Structure formats: structure tokens, C-alpha cells
């Protein structure tokens, strides 16, 4: 469960995102829309713990009953997805996934990674480098990697905008399915109305 209380983003005194309250349950999506420069990405950055001056954020973020707004980014367990898949290019698909998994016996971790790939119909790609995959495959691996880290929430910053129209539809469906399956609350930033899934709460900024 992700809860935002009185979240406000300012730039040099000017308020970009006025006091925002929201609750996002497991598998639910909060969609944030607005014009360019309206502060949507800044909101995500603040939620993740990556906001830098001169932008400033205020408010509270509660994850599964704990306030995390004071924690550094690596301790929050909030996943990120960008427009670019950002798979580490010098590692294979399997190594990318292993990077995200918690520590443990290697055999178990490899098994979990392979299982995740299989669930997304990507079995057999574990030895490939990201450069050898298609755009759609890369996006899916990126999502799987984020999920394998067992995040308590997932932030998506215009994740489908780089994909072509046909791929976009499939990716959307894949994403919401996986999120629902793993019970992860999500905040989606987009300027495309079609990206917003059914039943999502919509917030307009700017």
C-alpha cells in the first residue's frame, strides 16, 4: 500500500504540484498527467528520493505503514522504470536480473530469474546481451528486473513513449498484468491518455 500525504513540489518558490493526497493499493495505478514541465517527473523523482535542488519537495510518503520520505534512495525499495530500458549493456539478461535479486544461494537466484523470464514468455534469452534483443523484449526485461527486486511500489516515467503503436498496446497489457500479479502499487506519469489503465485514479497537474 502506497500513501501520499500533502505532497508538494516547488521550484524556486513557485509551486508545481500543489498538496497531493492519494492512496494506491496493491496492483492499483495512480496516473499523473500534465503538460511538459509541469512537474510530473519531479514528483516521481521526489518519491524515489532523487530530487535535486533547486527543486524541493514536502510531504509524507508511507509504504506498507512506514514513512520513507527521510530515507535515502537505496533504502526505500521503490522501483523505477524510464522511457529507456536502462538495462546494463555490459551484462547479459540473466546478470541484469541477478543484479536485482536479493543475496542468496546462486542456484536459487538463477532459478527465480529463469522462472520470471518464463512467466513473461522470454525463456531462452538469459544468455543474450541487451543489444541483441528487440525493443519490446528489452522493455519487458526491464520491468521484470524491477519486479525481481521486490519493490514496495513502482514508479513509471512515460515508460511506453519510445515504443511504436503496436508494441505499446502489448506492453501496457503486460505491465498491468505483472503488477497485478505481484501486488505492487504503481504511479504512472504520462501525457498519453491511452496509457492509463481501467480503474486507475487520475491526477492532473499544471
Amino acid at each position, binding site marked *: 500500500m502506497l500513501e501520499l500525504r500533502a505532497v508538494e513540489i516547488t521550484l524556486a518558490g513557485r509551486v508545481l504540484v500543489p498538496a497531493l493526497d492519494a492512496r494506491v493499493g496493491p496492483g492499483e495505478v495512480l496516473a499523473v498527467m500534465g503538460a511538459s514541465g509541469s512537474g510530473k517527473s519531479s514528483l516521481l523523482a521526489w518519491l*524515489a*528520493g*532523487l530530487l535535486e535542488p533547486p527543486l524541493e519537495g514536502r510531504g509524507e510518503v508511507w509504504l506498507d505503514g512506514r514513512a520513507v520520505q527521510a530515507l*535515502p*534512495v*537505496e*533504502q*526505500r*525499495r*521503490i*522501483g*523505477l522504470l*524510464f522511457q*529507456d530500458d*536502462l538495462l*546494463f*549493456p*555490459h*551484462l547479459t539478461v540473466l*546478470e541484469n536480473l*541477478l*543484479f*536485482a*535479486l*536479493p*543475496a*542468496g544461494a*546462486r542456484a536459487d*537466484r538463477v532459478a527465480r530469474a529463469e522462472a520470471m523470464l518464463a512467466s513473461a514468455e522470454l525463456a531462452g534469452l538469459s544468455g543474450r546481451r541487451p543489444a541483441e534483443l528487440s525493443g519490446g523484449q528489452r522493455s519487458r526485461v526491464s520491468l521484470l*528486473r*524491477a519486479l525481481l*527486486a521486490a*519493490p514496495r511500489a513502482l514508479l513509471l516515467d512515460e515508460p511506453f513513449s519510445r515504443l511504436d503503436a503496436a508494441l505499446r498496446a502489448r506492453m501496457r497489457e503486460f505491465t498491468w498484468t505483472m503488477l497485478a500479479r505481484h501486488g505492487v502499487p504503481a504511479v504512472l506519469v504520462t501525457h498519453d491518455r491511452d496509457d492509463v489503465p481501467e480503474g486507475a485514479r487520475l491526477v492532473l497537474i499544471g
Partner: protein
Amino acid sequence: MKPRAAAAVRAARAAGRAGVLLIFALPLVAGLAFGLGEAFDPRGWRELLDQPQWPTALALSVTGALASTLLSLALAMVLVKALHGTPAWTRLVRALAPMLAVPHAAFAIGAAWLFAPAGLLARAIAPLAGWSAPPAWVTVNDPQGLMLIGVLVLKETPFLLWNLAALLARTDEAARLKQALAMAGSLGYTRRAFWWRLGWPLVLPLLAWPLLAVLAYGLTVVDVALVVGPNSPPTLAVSAYADLQDGSAGANARGATAALLLGLVLLGLCGLAALAWPLVRRAWIAAATSGRRPAPRRAAAGAARAAAVALVAAYAVVIALLAGLSVAGVWTFPSWRPQVLTLDAWAQVLLAGRTLGFTAALALAASAAGLVLAWAWLEATPAQWDGRVAPFALAPLVLPGLLLMAGLYQGSLHLRIDGSVAALLWVHVLVVLPYSWLVLRPAWRSFDVRLEHTALALGRSRTAFWWRVKWPLLAAPIAAALAVGFAVSVAQFVATQFIGAGRHATVTTEAVTLASGGQRTLGAAFALLQALLPLAGFALAALAARDDPDGRARPAAQVTAPTPAGPPRGA
């Protein structure tokens, strides 16, 4: 374009390329050929192996080079990891340019007195330790070469930092790095963990060439080793240097063989590294993807900041020390200030105005010629050739300078141009050209070619376009190339000694001769002069860069970011 005009342009391009090849590649190959010819003389190998000290000398060279390369890499990595992304990083990067401008020899001369038994550090400790006479320290010229390693580390770390800064400042790299950092953070990894698991495996392979240059320099350095290195026995590079200037054929052959041996050692180390890297990498990635998330460490950042401050401070202290030494008369231990101040040294320097003028004129001519040749090459060749040309263009940076210079000296003797200013200038251009090319290349290749098309379409000639559009827009890289070339030429030691046949003194040869000969005051004055010359050049270049209005011709980041041009090498 009309067919005849197109043919004319092609002919001009071909002529430009041929000219550069003649002026640059031909002497390079000839020098190597002469040098190698000498080196393969069996007499040389016999003489070398006859000398009882050669294993020690070789060991000193190899350990010195390896240790200094690895230590400076480690220090650079620590500083980047701790400071990158913080305001301290920008401050450090800004301080790098003047640090790099201080020539190796001048730095060594100042550092030698900092750490000598009667030097500044000992005098600082004296009141606490109760010394009335200098301690029996074995620091400068120590037989294990530790002082040499220390000075090399202090000099090479800023170089590696500069290269890393250039790599990280490339707009695409910087953005990707930031995002990768954010991604790793979201996956639960601290900054430190990110660097060790992801950052370094990505960045280090890109540092291959600079590391090679550092290793090659450490193996073949002469001027720094003369001032602070061991002298019983000296490193193999220093004894090869003495042998190569000897008149007897046997000693000559021995020196050339020693230089070749150093070259082979360099090749061998590269081969080892190339073989070991895949194994190291595999182990590294296995460790990196183990999933362990280490806890954050607070203390590390503070220590790194202190190290950065110490590094910059060392340079400031060395320069101040040179200035102080140059006016010091009697300065008995343990006094902090000289008992007697004297301006004799500077009076002598003023009288040696001819040397200063010659050094500056030679450096200006060499850097201007290097600039013109690099420009001609960049205009005459398509961008795709750069990758294949790079190893040849950068050869003078990684080849053992001794071998090359010895070969060129032999060639100049046969052509009867040894000792002539023309030959000396030619050799300086040979050394300066790779730097000019390195500095100009990114700016030239990323120049928006549509600007040229627009100018031509407006009916102006190509020459008018260059004169009034391209060069003014590229004023900053041009000034930087001139400054770097100037610094490189000023710092040349072995080249001037060999090809100048002892007939031409530059500020550098004077400084090293005086300092290694024990004349501290005069040596310090010349060393300070040697350090100030390139600094002046860089200051002028910085002024030119500031005049550049908006750098529209190339990506914004490159206006202020340093390019991996490398330090002025005196080899």
C-alpha cells in the same frame, strides 16, 4: 559542386594527407627503424647482459611503472567514486588543468626538496621530534625507487582524473550514468556499491589508452628519475639514456638494446593485461551480481575529500617551494625561513634570457606547426578514418621515447642535421602533433557541417567560411591545442638533449641539469620558469575560451569540459 571544383578539392585533400604523412609518419618510422636497427645488434645484448646491475635496473623500472600506474588508478577511482556528482567534484576538475600544466621535471625538483632529509617536511617535524640536525632519512634517490613512485603517483593521478572527468562529462555518458545510478539506487544499491559493481566495469575499459600511456611513461621516464630516482643503480631507462649519448659503439648498442627491452616489457605487460582481463571481469561480474547490498559507510567520503585537498595542496606547496628555493641562500636546518635571501639566481636567469626566448620560440613554433598539421589532417580525412588512424597518431605517446629519440639522433647524424634548429623543431612537432590532434578532433568532428553548407549556399568561398565562421567558432579548442602543444614542447627533455646534440639549451634541460647536479637555488629558479611557461599558455587559452560566445558549433558540455589530451610529457 562543379566536377572540376570537386576534383580540385579531392586533390587538395590528397596533398594535405600526403604532407602530413611526410612530416609526421616518415620521421616516426625512420626513427623507429634506426632505433630498432641499433637495438638488434647482438653486441648490444652481450654488453647489456654483461653489466652486473641490469636485473636490478630492470626490476626498478618495472616495479616503479606498475606501482605508480596501479596506485594512481586506485587513487583516481577513490576520488571519483566519493566526489562525483557533488560540488567538490567540479572544484577538483577545475583545479586539474593547472596541476597538469606543471611539467614533471619541475614538480620533481620541488617535491624532492619537500621530502629530502633537510627538506620542508623534516623541518616541519623537527620541533616535535627535537632534531637539531637533519634525520638520517633515505628519501630522495632512495635505492628502492619509492620516492620515484611517489612523485609519479602525484603527477599521474590528476592525468587519470582528467581523463575520467572527460569521459563522464560527455553529455550522453553523463546522462546515462545518472540514470544508471538512479536505477541502481532504486534496486537498493548505494553510490559506492554502484561504482564497484556497475560503474567501474563500464568505465575502466574506456581508460585503456590513458593507462597505457601512464605505464609507458613510468617505464621510460628519464628527467624525473634523474632528479628523484635511484642512482646506484639507476633505473634501466636512465642508464639507457646515458649509454645512448655515449660515443662508443658498444655503449650505444647497449643503450638501444635496453630501450628495446623496455619496449618489449611494455608489450608483455599489455599482453598479460589483455589475457587477464576476461578472467578478472568474469570474477568481478559474478561478485557484482551476487545481490549483496552493503550498508553505507559515512567515513569514506570525508577521507576522500581530504585526499583531494591533499593532492591539490601538494601542487601548491611544490610551486611555493620552488619560488622560495630560488631566492634562498644559506638555509640551515631546522630553520623554517632561509637565513639569507639572495636574488643571484634570478639575476642569472635574466642573463640567460636567450635560453628563455629560445624555449618559448621553439614551443610556439612547434605548437603552431602541430596545430596546422592537425587541422590539415582533420580537414583532409573523413571521420571514419579516425579509428584506424588513432594508433599511428598516438604512437609517440606510448612508444618508448628513448628508442625513438636515439633512432632519430642516429638518423640526424647521417643526414648531417643534428644540432640544427630545424631538426630540433621537426622532432618537437613530431611529439606535439598527437596532442594537437587529440584536442582538435572532437571539436572538428562534431562541427555542424550544415553551417558550411549554409555559407557555401550563400555564395561565399570555402576560405571565407573558414576564416570568418569555422575558426572563430572553434577558437576555444584551437587555443587549447596551442596551449597543450606549447606545454608539451617546453617539457621535452630527452628530445632536446639528443637531437639538439647539446647545442641548444632550453629552460627544461637547464633545470634538470642544474637540479640533478645539486645546484638547488638556480635549479629551482629554472624549474619555476619551466612551470610558469605552460601555465601562462593555459591561462591565455582559458581567456580565449571565455570569449567564445555560445559555442554553437558543438555540444555545450565540450565548451567547458576537458578533453583527454594528456599531460605534457617530458620523455
